[in-house]
């Protein structure tokens, strides 16, 4: 099997003040080409002012099968939310 161009993940900042957001992925021989391709594939209509590309193999992702141990412990920690605390009605803004 011939070698394929590696896969890259593309993140775009749509305007200054906002974070980069995952837009999709594409194939390119190197980082520079990945940036150029990302510009053509994902920003044909002024969708961005900044692009990040990262080779997909460099991303470590959590496994959805472990979602219970990872995320459920946060569910019973209601004291992390402001509504957990009882204040007198006279206090309007806190």
């Amino acid at each position, binding site marked *: 099997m*011939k070698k*394929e*161009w590696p896969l890259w993940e593309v993140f775009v900042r749509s305007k200054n003040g906002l974070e980069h957001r995952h837009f*999709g*992925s594409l194939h390119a021989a*190197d980082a520079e080409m990945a940036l150029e391709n990302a510009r053509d*594939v994902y920003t*044909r209509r002024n969708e961005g002012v900044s692009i990040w590309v990262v080779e997909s193999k460099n991303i470590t992702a959590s496994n*959805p099968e472990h979602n219970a141990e990872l995320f459920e412990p946060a569910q019973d920690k209601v004291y992390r939310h402001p509504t957990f605390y009882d204040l007198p009605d006279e206090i309007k803004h806190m």
Partner: protein
Amino acid sequence: MSEAQIKSLEEEFEARIARDEKIEPKDWMPEKYRKTHIRQMSQHAHSEIVGMLPEGNWISRAPSLRRKVALLAKVQDEGGHGLYLYSATETLGITRDELFEQLHTGKAKYSSIFNYPALTWADIGAIGWLVDGAAIINQVALCGTSFGPYARAMVRICKEESFHQRQGYEITLKLAQGTPEQKAMAQDALNRFWWPSLMMFGPADADSPNTEQSMKWKLKRKTNDELRQQFIDQTVPQAELIGLTIPDPDLKWNEEKGGYDSGEIDWDEFWQVVKGHGPCNKERMKARVSAWENGEWVRDAALAHAEKQQDKKLNRAG
């Protein structure tokens, strides 16, 4: 995994989709879900890529600069849409090269509409108006599909595609308002593209055995016949407005159902084209395969260059 375990996973999976939860690539999914999605999504991607061919021929023949930039932008969008869909398909564990291999060997299908020729400039109008119009109806229904990467690609595609249909209708409209010869060209294009456009919604419900499963997975929100009806009801007034005639003598408004009754589709023609015997099947695949093969040295050279640069960097660092 035991059979009972798989069955319980499958039940939980179906329940998630029924609750309108999205499925993401790393989630557990039944093998049939994965395979069906690879088939449908890649077919969709291939349609975008092959769809560039009938129109590409007209870029250098567009009658004005305005038409030319619009057509160029439309064809470039189609290339982009193919790329969104290929990368969404790859999240299911198939490589881009495998997907191309399936297209080039005829194992994977693409929309039959692209096996019809674009003979005149009026066909570019009809393709945008009718073919993209039909595609949009199919695609809007898919924005809510259960597989996350597919749904996200569809949302982007739908946003970008409405200009495609408008530019096509505008071309048709101008021709219909032009000289008698121009109007005749527009009518001729409508005559040739009307029925193949109706076929884009797939076989009649009675002959579509996968519909039930696809509805469950939200790969379809409406049946083929429902979508086809929606297209007819939407398009007939658009033709009337510009003085063109839909080439269907049985077309008649049905007050009771609030939609048009229409004539029988030539399903023999549909199956012939699907099986590879349409007017341009061979030509399309030849163009596609030769583009892929002639581009091979460029792909190899780019990769060799990237590896060399990488080595240089490592040597400098060492």
